């Protein structure tokens, strides 16, 4: 399992990073006045769509968990619908959490929601791809000793680093520097993106370094 798996993981992650980088540079060829900071919402949409697409494609190609034996069409459709519902629910619950953290309730609602969508893309979409709409499994992965493969391990790292990135992204907001990126929610989205990228980069490396110590139970 060891080295080949880690290599595959690394390639997958590099593709994800690549998609984010592309989402920064490609649209400027098609859209006028496109820049990450000024047309931030557009960039958020493009970034989330591209990251979701890359995740889905990679999931279909790599198939990290070849587990589901029943593969009738109706099962797949219901599973897909369930995933969509989960995704929406996660968007809304993130939105609620941001409001609880002090985001304005009415004004800037679209901005807040797009931040929720972006964060969901970085966290919920990989979870859905890897674990499926299975809440128990999610809780298992995100509690201690719950991971059962390097994929889940990297999932854990990227998700947590995205959250931490968003969390840290809120710190510059009260500073009186008056920079454009201190506007809500730009610093948080940037934090989420950096956190996600950092997670993508570090998780294969971390797993590689700790590969001697890592033993997973069920494989």
């Amino acid at each position, binding site marked *: 399992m060891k080295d080949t798996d880690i290599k595959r993981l690394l390639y997958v992650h590099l593709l994800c990073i690549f998609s984010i980088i592309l989402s920064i540079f490609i649209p400027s060829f098609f859209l006028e006045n496109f820049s990450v900071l000024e047309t931030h919402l557009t960039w958020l949409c493009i970034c989330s769509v591209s990251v979701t697409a890359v995740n889905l494609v990679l999931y279909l190609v790599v198939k990290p968990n070849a587990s589901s034996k029943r593969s009738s069409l109706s099962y797949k459709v219901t599973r897909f619908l369930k995933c969509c519902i989960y995704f929406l629910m996660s968007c809304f619950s993130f939105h609620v*959490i941001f*409001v609880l953290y*002090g985001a304005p*309730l009415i004004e800037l609602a679209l901005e807040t929601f797009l931040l929720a969508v972006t964060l969901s893309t970085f966290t919920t979409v990989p979870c859905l791809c890897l674990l499926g709409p299975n809440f*128990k499994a999610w809780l298992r992965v995100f509690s201690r*000793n*719950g*991971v059962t493969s390097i994929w889940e391990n990297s999932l854990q790292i990227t998700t947590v680093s995205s959250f931490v990135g968003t969390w840290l992204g809120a710190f510059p907001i*009260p500073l009186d520097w008056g920079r454009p990126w201190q506007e809500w929610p730009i610093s948080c989205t940037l934090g989420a993106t950096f956190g996600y990228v950092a997670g993508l980069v570090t998780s294969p490396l971390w797993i590689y370094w700790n590969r001697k110590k890592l033993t997973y139970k069920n494989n």
Partner: protein
Amino acid sequence: MRLGSGTFAACCVVIEVLGVALFLRGFFPVPVCSFSGTEHQTESPAPEPSAGAISNWTKLPPPLFSKVVIMLIDALRDDFVFGSEGVKFMPYTTYLVEKGSSHSFVAEAKPPTVTMPRIKALMTGSLPGFIDVVRNLNSPTLLEDSVITQAKAAGKRIIFYGDETWVKLFPKHFLEYDGTTSFFVSDYTEVDDNVTRHLDKVLKRRDWDVLILHYLGLDHIGHISGPNSPLIGRKLSEMDSVLMKIHTSLLAEERETLLPNLLVLCGDHGMSEAGGHGASSVEEVNTALILISSAFERKPGDVRHPKYIQQTDLAATLSIGLGLPIPRGSVGSLIFPVVEGKPMREQLRFLHLNTVQLSKLLQENVPSYRKEPGFEQFKVSERLHGNWIRLYLEENNSEVLFNLGSKVRRQYLDALRTLSLSLSRQAAQYDVYSMAAGTVLVLEVVALLLLCVPQALSGKAELDVPLLSPVSSLLFYLLLLALAALHVVVCTSSDSSCYLCSLPWLAAGGVMVLISTLLCAVVSALTGMFAAGSRLSKNPLPSNSRWSELDLLILSGTVGHVLSLGASSFIEEEHQTWYFLVNTLCLALCHEIYRNCFVGDDCAPQRCPHAGEEFDGVAAAPQGKSTGPDVWELDRASKHPSPLEALRGPERWMVLASPWVILSCCRLLRSLNQTGVQWAHRPDLGHWLTSSDHKAELSVLATVSLIMIFVLVQKRCSLASKVAMAFGLLGIYCYRVAVGNLLFPWQQNNKDISKGITEARFVYVFVLGILFTGTKDLLKSQITADDFTVKTVGLWEIYSGLVLLAALLLRPHNLPVLALSLVIQTVMTHFVWRPLRHDAAEVTVMHYWFGQAFFYFQGNSNSIATVDISAGFVGLDAYVEIPAVLLTAFATYTGPVLWAGHLVNFLASEASRPAPETQASGTLYLRTKLTSTSMDGVKASIGFWSKKARGGSRCGGWASALRPLAPGGLHLLSALQTATADPWLPQLQAC
């Protein structure tokens, strides 16, 4: 040396207070002042300079105005007069500003924008030190030279009506006075009527020269309902009519006298968007200043825009106008337009007098004054002035005279500006040496505390303080020698005044001994710790194995908060930090609960038993776990099966929902009061509720909150206290109705507003009653040992008495803060802390966080502007200092105090429950309080340093410095701090 933790804590607090005091002494700028005392009253005025020819004008110039009326409107922000509100509500004043014979200015007040220091600045022209804020409530006699003193000495007759502060500052100076107390902030008509009722009589009289009127109503309206309230407009119209009355009367009288009269309309400070004042925002600093006199006549097309000047400039101008010597400590420069209409010789004479006074002040305060650019400019202009006088006396042609004269005038004005600026800057200089010594002391104590905390937490109430050995060590003596050398070098070389150097040798030596002893103790504690660490690392179990994610969050949050205070924005917006941390804490609790509930009972039984050693070093790191916790957690889990498994049905659902309940409560409270600096002007629920249109809504909200408070508090009280509580809460509602904040349902709109003294005293009786029963129960439990139920009931009764008092003192729109804090406490107790079995340390820190957050939920901030002084006058019909200060302090710190009270209750009730792992509460509580106190000290010092580094406004910094010094409050020990701090307050003022 072995010390009990209590002794140790007390020692640390004393030393820390000493350090903070030393630091503050260095930080508070020593006000620029004239050292030549008041005994040189008859100092002859500077003669006119002359080159060669001898001028015959050596006396002071005669007064420019015969009568001066100063109409001071408290909190008269510049846009109340010059903005759209002024145009709308002050038509007469607007006419005078735009077309009349007047000069209008925007006078910039220096922080602290509090009334008493501002009055001092207006009358002495000096920059009062920040320490004057502390004395704002109880202003002592002003000893410095001021316009009033000079006027009195010159035999002018002064009449004063208005704010009592003036009478306290100038007790023997007024021919006649009537002081109104400014402490009934809720009263905004009577304070002003008390002033206006004298007007008719006094304006007809001829036996005075200076009349001072101080109107407080506008400021009170600001404190009650903010600068956008409809009451402001009404008050401004009232002021306008007063101004008109005075002006017409002065004009009528002028026909009979030779000299014109002067009417000064000014504000002492502005008003922030929230309605308070004290800090340094633009709205608080800019005040209106209008000088009206027929001497300032202008041609029809002459448009005069308000110019920016300093508030301190008024003192010099008034002195010149009254023909008095300029107050010696004044750093202001003459407002030149006032003398513009005079002949050139007089203009130059006035400017010369002002420059001479400023340069004298500079000589007294700056040892190297000869190098100052202002002084050089002064010398140049004096020489030119002399030449001009010679030409003048030789009666040269007027064109040459005029050209040279205007050149001299420009020179003088430049010199004045430079001198004034460098003197103001002088007032803001720090005593770095004392500050450094204080900081070192505080940091050493904190380091020692941090090093000893693990030992103290280990359970023994005793700890080993490495004190004796260092005292005899070589290091100690070397350090002491080095410090003494440093002291001598600093004290002999520095040219500015320094507090430590002015201390007697023994005291300074004591400080040095303290510093070196503590340093040695820290060093030896560190070495001891490293030795222990290396021993431990050989052991299989690392010592930090008990840290869970929650512990990590709590630790990093607390440390991070302290670090964040290095940026001044984080001091100004500290509430954001606490809200953020509390939210994160709730989410972390949520994660813990859900894991315990779902994974705990479904996965764990199959997975846990054989998960132990196999998983060492796995996957845990990204979430910041180390290998240890797993083992420990599993141990604990196997010993005590997950507590949440036992819960079924509704209770389980409540546990699952509790974090979300708390989060929503916090979000609600957050939108109740906007605080801080950057977003303070945003609309919030509090303003909406307090506006007069929404009295009905506010009444409903207050009723609901009071009922909630009763329901949540009563269940653990004895019957008598229950009844007392109910009556007390009812009394609170009646009090608020009497004061005019709330309405009874059968009442449409109340017209008769009283001070509600009867109602408030009615509530006080019940508060005292409940506190008394509580204390009685506590004492009883002391006698009959081990009677835990009586003890917990007693503690809870004391707590509920405090809640009742808080409900009385808090503004009605803040009652939900109290109710929701009780809700959160109940939910946390029943559904989080008990089921999840958090240990005492965790619970304590959580209480600390929530207490801090609630400090800000109440609408407080790190600026003194948000302190609600009206709370100190509930139920008092005159200002009584001690109760007023205590009540204000309690109302300000309600959140932290109530959370601390709840902590005591919680720990006591846990101790009485048959649970295995709760610790004895007392020592731990003391210890945590101690650390948090030292945190505040560090906070203050870090804030100061950052402020200094940025050179920006010091407001946030000094306000947060006052927090550890404030009487009462979260820190039970801060009373001690104040007591220690008090004796050196007079010294500060001595200058």
